[in-house]
């Protein structure tokens, strides 16, 4: 197969970038998208040009590192798959393919297709955990969990923190990601003691990072490689309002830093 690529090249955070045309031949339909880029990079290096920088690690759809906006879609056209799980058989021979980085104020570009997604870490650091020090736990089976809740918690916990939800959202909102963590812990008994606090501080941190606001468009859900559901956002909203209006606790912005 043969493709024409338009790839975003940007030297570093301070230099403006642009789309650059490349063409690539002899692509095997069973190659993954990243393997195709590997070959393109190999060609570039041999020609003495700089290869395209992109994030990737596990190449099996679980680490959440790969992050390309391909032909106008976060992680490309394949439903419920990361960029590394996108196979060239999804495209037609001769296609022109646009490859851009995630675009969001909160995810500044480092180089080419590589962005800085540490905003997500900071959001987790603000409350995306159960505060239990090592050694304090009781026997695991002392805490039965309704199977349905456990399954739903697992559905939410499947989030890989890739940021496709932000990339796909026309508002560049991070609510799907944040709500997935809030939901996971809200659904489990372990998460209850800090439930109010967590909702308030994580939302507050999310706002501070400069993500956009959710207007219930649903692009995040449609593009999420792990099929995280919008119901999580509703759950987060409920928890946040209940906590903000009902709970005696308050958290100050950026607490936990």
């Amino acid at each position, binding site marked *: 197969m043969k493709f024409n690529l*338009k790839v*975003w090249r940007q030297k570093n955070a301070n230099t403006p970038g642009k*789309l650059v045309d490349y063409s690539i031949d002899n692509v095997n339909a069973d190659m993954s998208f990243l393997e195709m880029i590997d070959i393109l990079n190999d060609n570039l290096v041999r020609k003495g040009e700089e290869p395209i920088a992109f994030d990737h690690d596990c190449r099996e759809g679980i680490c959440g590192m790969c992050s390309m*906006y391909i*032909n*106008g*879609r976060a992680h490309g*056209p394949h439903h419920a798959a990361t960029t590394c799980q996108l196979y060239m058989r999804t495209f037609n021979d001769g296609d022109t393919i*646009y490859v*851009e980085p995630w*675009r*969001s*104020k*909160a995810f500044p570009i480092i180089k080419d297709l590589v962005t800085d997604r540490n905003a997500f870490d900071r959001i987790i650091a603000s409350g995306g955990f159960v505060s239990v020090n090592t050694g304090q736990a009781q026997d695991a089976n002392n805490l039965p969990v309704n199977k349905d809740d456990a399954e739903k918690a697992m559905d939410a916990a499947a989030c890989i923190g890739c940021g496709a939800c932000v990339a*796909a959202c*026309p*508002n*560049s*909102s991070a*609510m799907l990601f944040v709500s997935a963590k809030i939901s996971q812990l809200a659904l489990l008994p372990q998460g209850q003691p800090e439930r109010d606090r967590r909702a308030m501080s994580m*939302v*507050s941190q*999310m*706002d501070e990072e*400069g*993500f*956009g*606001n*959710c*207007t*219930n*468009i*649903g*692009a995040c*859900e*449609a*593009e999420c490689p792990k099929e995280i559901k*919008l*119901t999580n*956002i*509703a*759950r*987060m*909203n*409920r*928890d*946040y*309002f209940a906590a*903000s*209006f009902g709970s005696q606790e*308050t958290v100050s*912005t950026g607490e936990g830093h």
Partner: protein
Amino acid sequence: MNWFTKILTSSLGKKFVMALTGLFLISFLVIHCTINAMIFFNDGGATFTHWGHFMGTNTIIRTLEIGLIIGFLLHIYEGLLLWKQNRDARPVKYSYVKHPEKSKWYSRSMGLLGTLILLFLIMHTAHFWIPNRTHQFVEGEELPLYQMMLDIFQNPLIVVLYLLGCFSLFWHLLHGFRSSFQSLGLNHVKYNKTITFVGTAFSIVVPFIFAMMPISIYFKWIQ
């Protein structure tokens, strides 16, 4: 910042305000639509004028009207703010965007639809509400709203503009109705279908009734 303003200015707080004011405006639409639909009795405006007079003079309703205005302003203000913040959240745009099927154009265009409705509202209030209230304030009595309707909707251009307004309202509601429930966290497998159904029905019925008013008058189905 005190806790209350802090909530309301947070991203979720804004959703909350949008949703509550939205639902409030929806409830207003119900009343507005019901009363205006009295013209379809085709009794020369008698029923309509009766209820119109009640709405225009009853103290409780007049007080609520202030709430309504605040609701409108808040909804508009927050809407514009959201639009701006959301635009700023992505300083460099994508060169090529292909929206997934599940994300609907009208959901993505609430700002645009809202603006269209706002423009319509300016025209609409300039036609009826502003002159009427001004007159009430200055002269102490109401204008003959029914007659004004009959007059204004003789102009085909205005009729078309009103229809466009209703059309924008339809799309705006189609997203807004269900969206406000989601924003308030009211998403539940058992009730989602109902919410969606009622929302869709509402978005069709109300703008349709509204749209029928200028049409019926223009075509003289109502005298």
